[in-house]
């Protein structure tokens, strides 16, 4: 149990540090790298919660595919330094205050929760909890409709992104290298997830 606690605090600290890095760092490129660190720490937390398949999917889909897409777009758009608000007036300082109020509210909800099981370390689980076999079995039996809807949503997303990112003169015609590369990445991301 001690090892589990040490691992939780290391991974939780890494996740918080990564999240702060995403929200605070000026350069968008460093923000993307901080998000990669955050996702890796989060996958360790998923492993602690016995969600093996989701931890692997998190690393492969997010840290692998989606973050590469982000890095490409940051490099394409040009990751100029993004100053935080030049004049943090009333509206500029509103964001952190709102987030703090939200956290206080969520903490009150958590402390005052009547869920007794929140104080336990979780229900007893069998040997195969969270393995790809069990998840896949559920996806193809009990959760077949959400699974199919998600695949349809991925198709819609891929087609929509190609329509958004193409040049305005129709689908045929001379297309520059950026259009081609974005299309390739999107198609790869669509089938990969």
């Amino acid at each position, binding site marked *: 149990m001690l090892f589990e*606690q040490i691992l*939780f605090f290391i991974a*939780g600290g890494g*996740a918080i540090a990564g*999240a*702060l890095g*995403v*929200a605070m760092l000026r350069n*968008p490129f460093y*923000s993307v790298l901080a*998000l990669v660190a*955050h*996702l890796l720490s989060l996958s360790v*937390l998923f492993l602690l919660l016995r*969600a093996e*398949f*989701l931890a692997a*999917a998190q690393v492969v889909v*997010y840290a692998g595919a*989606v973050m590469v*897409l*982000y890095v490409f*777009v940051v490099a*394409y*758009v040009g990751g100029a330094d*993004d100053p935080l*608000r030049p004049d943090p007036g009333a509206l*500029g300082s509103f*964001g*952190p205050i*709102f*987030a*703090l109020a*939200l*956290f206080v509210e*969520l*903490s009150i909800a958590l402390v005052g929760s009547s*869920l007794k*099981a*929140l104080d*336990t370390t979780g*229900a007893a*689980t069998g040997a195969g909890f969270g393995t790809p076999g*069990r*998840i896949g079995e559920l*996806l193809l039996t009990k959760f077949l409709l*959400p699974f199919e809807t998600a695949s349809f*949503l*991925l198709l819609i*997303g*891929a087609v*929509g*992104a*190609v*329509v*958004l*990112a193409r040049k305005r003169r129709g689908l045929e015609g001379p297309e520059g290298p950026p259009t081609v590369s*974005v299309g390739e990445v*999107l198609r790869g991301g669509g089938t990969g*997830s």
Partner: protein
Amino acid sequence: MTMQWFVALSALIFCIGASGVMTRRSPLVVLLCLELMLNAGNLALIAFSRMVGNHDGQIFALIVLVVAACEVVVGLGIIVAMHRRRLPIDVDKMNRLRG
């Protein structure tokens, strides 16, 4: 570790993401902070799934992962389209749907 730790951590990450969405100006970083918020939700879902002892929360988190991937793809497509039309990459100046 009791489940309270995981849920409190997820609330903290969600709030950091929310503050980032409201303070940053680059739409790229706003999308990244949205990812943070979705991931915090995922962590809470998986913690509750472990608490109850069945897989429903994990399937939900997997579907959230798919929706997040779609959102990223469409959002980045919009940013690339903005860049190509020489529009400023700044959410403060994006206040019309027809550019």
